[in-house]
């Protein structure tokens, strides 16, 4: 209900802007948003929604895109590709949206991307981080404005090469496909920057006891422990590491989802010193970001996270592309988006023409006193990795 009200007020703000600027054509530019509004990923969907709504309100207040107001239509995808595809088809065929975004899990993005390709429309994801979306499963109709897993991993590895050259690394991942692939990706990055890998173990999801792996970790004497566990698993792993006194001489690195705002409180002091690579942090000390964080807080009563910030930035990319193309036509906008450089709260981003992946500055953050602090910036070109898309 509250979100309906919020949507209404956003729309009203948009209408008010039209009334204020008589030059605006009545015909709005429609952007469809298929995002999880219920279920496990509702929290992410909420950030996506806040980010997009804030950007749409600001764009409309400034006169819209080519004088046309932006109108957002939301649909709940329940983080299920089958639902996402059905809802996306509705937005394309019934609501006649010009552009679509919002998908969170990678399966939804891939499936909706294929639908867009067959329907001759464009989509962009602001959340999904599976490398495949802009690599082997790339599509000419899909863009990604957020950092993919490889960029996070590469950023962390270049920090590692600088801070701890020739580091000896041990890996501990959750035993499922994504856990194994994140470990494999970081391991190849460590090998690339000249570190050495001592060994890896995979613990079942929802493990209660991680101490059984500690003997193996201690025996190999690593300087660095990389982990990609998440949620409450991180809480148990970190507190047990602390109780066994392993945190004293080992630096713990992890995936961006390992320590988050949701579990950092429960981990407490054990999280101190944890380092990860991200594409956005509310701590970024640029005037653009400070203004964005304030506006976001005023609208949503909470801090933006990377999903909110990436979604906010997308609207401005689309605005720039449509204005450059002079139309919302799929082929023209695609051409305009390819190679586009635009400003976001995170700094400048560039959509690489070869695979439609955004190149952006990456940040390495470290936990200190329960807060993430930026410790290093990795320039975009160093983190983006090779263009492996062969489809276009």
């Amino acid at each position, binding site marked *: *209900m509250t*979100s*309906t009200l919020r949507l209404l007020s956003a729309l009203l703000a948009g209408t008010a802007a039209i009334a204020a600027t008589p030059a605006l054509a009545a015909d709005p530019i429609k952007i469809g948003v298929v995002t999880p*509004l*219920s279920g496990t990923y*509702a929290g992410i969907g909420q950030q996506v929604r806040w980010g997009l709504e804030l950007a749409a309100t600001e764009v409309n207040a400034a006169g819209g895109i080519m004088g046309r107001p932006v109108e957002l239509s939301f*649909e*709940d995808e329940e983080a*299920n*590709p*089958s*639902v996402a*595809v*059905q*809802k996306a*088809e*509705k937005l*394309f*065929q*019934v609501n006649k949206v010009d552009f679509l975004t919002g998908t969170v*899990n*990678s*399966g939804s993005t*891939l*499936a909706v*991307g*294929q*639908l867009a390709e*067959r329907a001759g429309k464009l989509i962009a994801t602001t959340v999904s981080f*599976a490398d*495949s979306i802009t690599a082997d*499963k790339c599509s000419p109709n899909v863009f990604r404005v957020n950092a993919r897993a490889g960029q996070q991993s590469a950023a962390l590895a270049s920090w590692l090469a600088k801070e701890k050259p020739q580091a000896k690394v041990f890996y501990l991942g959750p035993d*499922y*496909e*994504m856990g194994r*692939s994140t470990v494999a990706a970081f391991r190849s990055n460590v090998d690339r920057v000249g570190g050495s890998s001592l060994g890896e173990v995979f613990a079942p999801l929802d493990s209660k006891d991680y101490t059984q792996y500690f003997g193996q970790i201690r025996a190999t004497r690593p300087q660095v422990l990389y982990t990609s566990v998440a949620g409450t698993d991180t809480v148990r792993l970190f507190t047990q590491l602390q109780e066994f006194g392993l945190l004293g001489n080992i630096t713990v690195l992890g995936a961006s989802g390992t320590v988050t705002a949701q579990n950092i409180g429960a981990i407490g002091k054990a999280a101190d010193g944890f380092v990860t690579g991200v594409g956005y942090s509310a701590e970024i000390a640029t005037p653009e970001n400070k203004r964005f964080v304030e506006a976001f807080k005023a609208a949503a009563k909470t801090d933006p996270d990377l999903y909110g910030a990436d979604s906010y930035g997308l609207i401005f990319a689309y605005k720039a592309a449509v204005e450059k193309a002079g139309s919302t036509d799929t082929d023209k906008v695609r051409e305009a988006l390819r190679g586009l450089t635009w400003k976001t709260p995170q700094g400048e981003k560039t959509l690489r023409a070869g695979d439609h992946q955004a190149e952006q500055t990456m940040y390495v953050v470290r936990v200190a006193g329960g807060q993430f602090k930026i410790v290093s910036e990795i320039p975009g070109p160093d983190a983006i990795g090779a263009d492996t898309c062969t489809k276009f």
Partner: protein
Amino acid sequence: MREPAPTETPAPARDPLTTAMRASHVLAGVLVVGALAFAAFGAAVGDTFYLRLATEALIFAGLALAVDILLGYTGLLSLGQALYFGLGAYVSALTLMAVPSFWAAFGAALLAGTVVGLVGGVIANRVRGVYFALITFGMAQVVGKVVYNTRALGASDGLIGVPVVDIGFGPWSFSSASPAGLFLFVLGYVMVLYAVAAYILDTPLGRLLIAMRANEGRVAFLGYRPVTARLIAYVIAAVVASLSGALYPMLRGFVSPELLFFTTSGNAVITVITGGAGTLVGALYGSLLLTVIKSYVGSWTEHHLIVIGLLFMAVVIFLPRGLIGLVRPKIERMLSRERKP
């Protein structure tokens, strides 16, 4: 001499089960007529979304049909029928990606459904009642998680890139990308599944299954082996679910592990109970109704699951025979009246 009054030959009393099944056929006929009108209208206005949404509803109706064979006729609550639906979908997707032929995908899904259904049936039928529900649930979760973690099957991302195929019968053929064509085809396909299921359930084997739902202990005393009958029912339901699942990648062009998860199985059970368990046609109407409700309510509020939940509870409390229970008894009465002179 007066002729003796002709002895009233007792009209070969058609038993109520046959009458009930005929009433279902009447409703199925109504559904087909309605669907044809809808397809004609949809094609005339050049609609894509609603035709494809209805096609998806029919595909999930096939899954609900499988659940009804088990729940409504045999009295077995399967909480894992999505296992076979997802199996059919994955097998069909993999076949289509290798050989873009409808009949190859159909054959592969038929074979896979039968084989895996037999194996699953042997495991699940060792127990009854709530344990059967738990085992079917567990098997589907295990297979779902295995698919979710198998990179060769696309892992959590699923498989995209299932090609558009031409579905052909002799001289006729059409593309699976044509909304009206695919809708009509899926309508015919699901009605054939319905007809085959209805035929089997009207044979002595079907009667045996219904008897087992009432009292399985007595069936054994009548000289039948309930285990065999249950296994046959289980395999039929597995094949129906698998053949329905085989259509999914033709419509959507992808498969994802969510097709095997409990949400899919649970929705099918809700569909059957809302439509009317033990009617077969209730599964079809239930699926169409729930798909439309979900699509509309889902666009209107993110609390759509509450709406579905309330509808489900209302049906269970006020319409224990499902929505079909509102009309079918009337048709049954009309049918049995027709037979009297």
